[in-house]
């Protein structure tokens, strides 16, 4: 919880899509990630988030599970379905506060690149987590 003074080694300009319907959370994440040198786009809606991810070259997708129109797990499955989405370069990080049912958890472990319980990390720690994808 101490503000960390080490400078971020994250590659400048990496593009992040943050699919998150809680504005306060996305606000905090955008602030922290932007300061660390990332280029962040926010989307609150599952369906539009899926389309954005399919049509743009993101490096990282932060994906909440409880989002409007289609759920995060649906977005994940469709982004990883080769019939629907050509292989993504983006790494997908699930961000959630919910317990997962066994079947969903298995899909997350198989198809996502990372998993974060939001209540347990601060925005600063999120930056560290995302940075670690490029270490």
């Amino acid at each position: 919880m101490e503000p960390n003074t080490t400078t971020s080694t994250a590659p400048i300009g990496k593009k992040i899509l943050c699919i998150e319907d809680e504005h306060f959370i996305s606000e905090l994440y955008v602030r922290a990630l932007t300061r660390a040198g990332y280029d962040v786009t926010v989307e609150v809606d599952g369906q539009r988030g899926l389309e954005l991810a399919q049509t743009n070259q993101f490096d990282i997708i932060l994906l909440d599970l409880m989002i409007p129109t289609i759920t995060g797990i649906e977005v994940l499955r469709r982004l990883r379905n080769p019939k629907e989405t050509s292989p993504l370069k983006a790494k997908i990080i699930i961000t959630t506060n919910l317990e997962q049912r066994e079947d969903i958890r298995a899909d997350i472990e198989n198809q996502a690149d990372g998993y974060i319980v939001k209540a347990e990390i601060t925005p600063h720690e999120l930056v560290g987590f995302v940075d670690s994808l490029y270490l």
Partner: protein
Amino acid sequence: MNHLQKYINQVRSHLLIILVANNAFLIGGWWYAHHIQHLSDINTLILLGSCALVLTVGFAFLSTSYLVSPLAAVWRAVLHIAPDTADTQAPNLQKIPLGRELIVSLVTHIYQIASITNTIEKIADKEQTNLDHDFIATSLPLPLVVLNKEDTIIFANQALAQYIGQNKTDMEGKNVYSVLDMAFTNEQTFDAWHRNARTNKAVAAQMWERVRLNLPDREQTNQPQFDLAAYYNQDNPQGFETMLVLFDHTNQYAQDDQAMSFVALAVHELRTPLTLLRGYIEAFQEELAGKVDPELEDFMKKMAVAAGQLSTFVNTILNVSRIENNQFTLQLHKESWKDVLENAVSAMHARAEVRGIDLQVSVDDNLPEVGVDRVSISEVINNLIDNAIKYSGTSDRIMIRAYQTKDGVVETTVQDLGVGIPENAVPHIFEKFYRNHRNRAQVGGTGLGLYLAKVIIGAHGGHIWVRSHEGEGSTFGFTVQPYNQVAGRAESSNNKSEIVRNAHGWIKNHSMYRR
């Protein structure tokens, strides 16, 4: 022995009398024939010789019947109790002329031994028959099941049949796991214990709490819950290798679950605001660092600590809820204990600092790599340090040590110099909802932290302990196992080796993972 001695004396005196009488008669006869009748030597010899012959034969018959009659009584007694010749009459002990006491005592012993043997046989018979004939079923109200070495149910009682709503005869002859699908609170399951007992033990016994059955025809919330006792005997002569007894606690555990699931639900709702609270506090700290009154900065730090504590609290509740729902699983991985411990401790530094407490860590060099679930074990460390901070009183330091014991396990202790625990509270300190009542009013807490710690350490195959003196502080210690001792479990519990877990989530190891 007295009877025997008496018998010997009696026999000796009888024989002496007979022999002396015999000799006296012969000497008297010789004197009579020689001096009174003046018979010739040859005639005297013939007369006395024939008399001696008659007497000797007579005495031999007489003494034989005297001496043998006790033996006959014993023989008759043995025949009487032997199954094949049971129609033999019992010996008449009144008719024994010699050594009656000895024979009465001998025969009494024979009958006693016979009756003990008989009883044993009857008991053995009874056990066999009882299992076959519902004796235990009617006398034991607890569900009971007996397995043979192939895990086949060779006996199930009526109580079990009722308990799980199946026919007794339908269960017998089936594999136990197909009839009883049991879920345990951690990985120390019946199956694991049973396999271990079969490999390493001749006899073994074990108890489990909060076992849940998964009956296909019932709702998850309506499943029987019970404590389970198992007895294993490798060489049971009847082939009853393992016996299971179920102690039903469905109502009690269901109530707990309900209370817990409500709390868990409520606590879950805290997570989003908590995420925000911590995020904004952090943003404040970053923005205001060095720009405001030091007192305000101090306030910010205390807010951050309070939010962190709330986060620990939420995790504890949710974890206990997972345990209650049998959903608690571990992901054991090879970890450097120094790294795990120092990371967990560093997360607690701010919390200790705002209370003016110094956390002093000393980790022995050359500890083996351990097999732990990093997330869960960090919660144990957090809870122990949190406790030490709460109960530190006016003391200003907490010592954390890690070392390898002579048994090869890695032990970690958290020692405070605070208020300590009253002696009568020590045995209960790891129980759920138990809190030291005297401190209840002064110190906040759920009474779940140590319970959770115990469950987590237990699931790791370690043990947790406390040593405390009132007024002098407490030392909590726990052990974790070197990785090579849990490697089998680690691989089976998680085969996704590319996943790297940290305290709050996981990422895939990108050196191994390419898409």
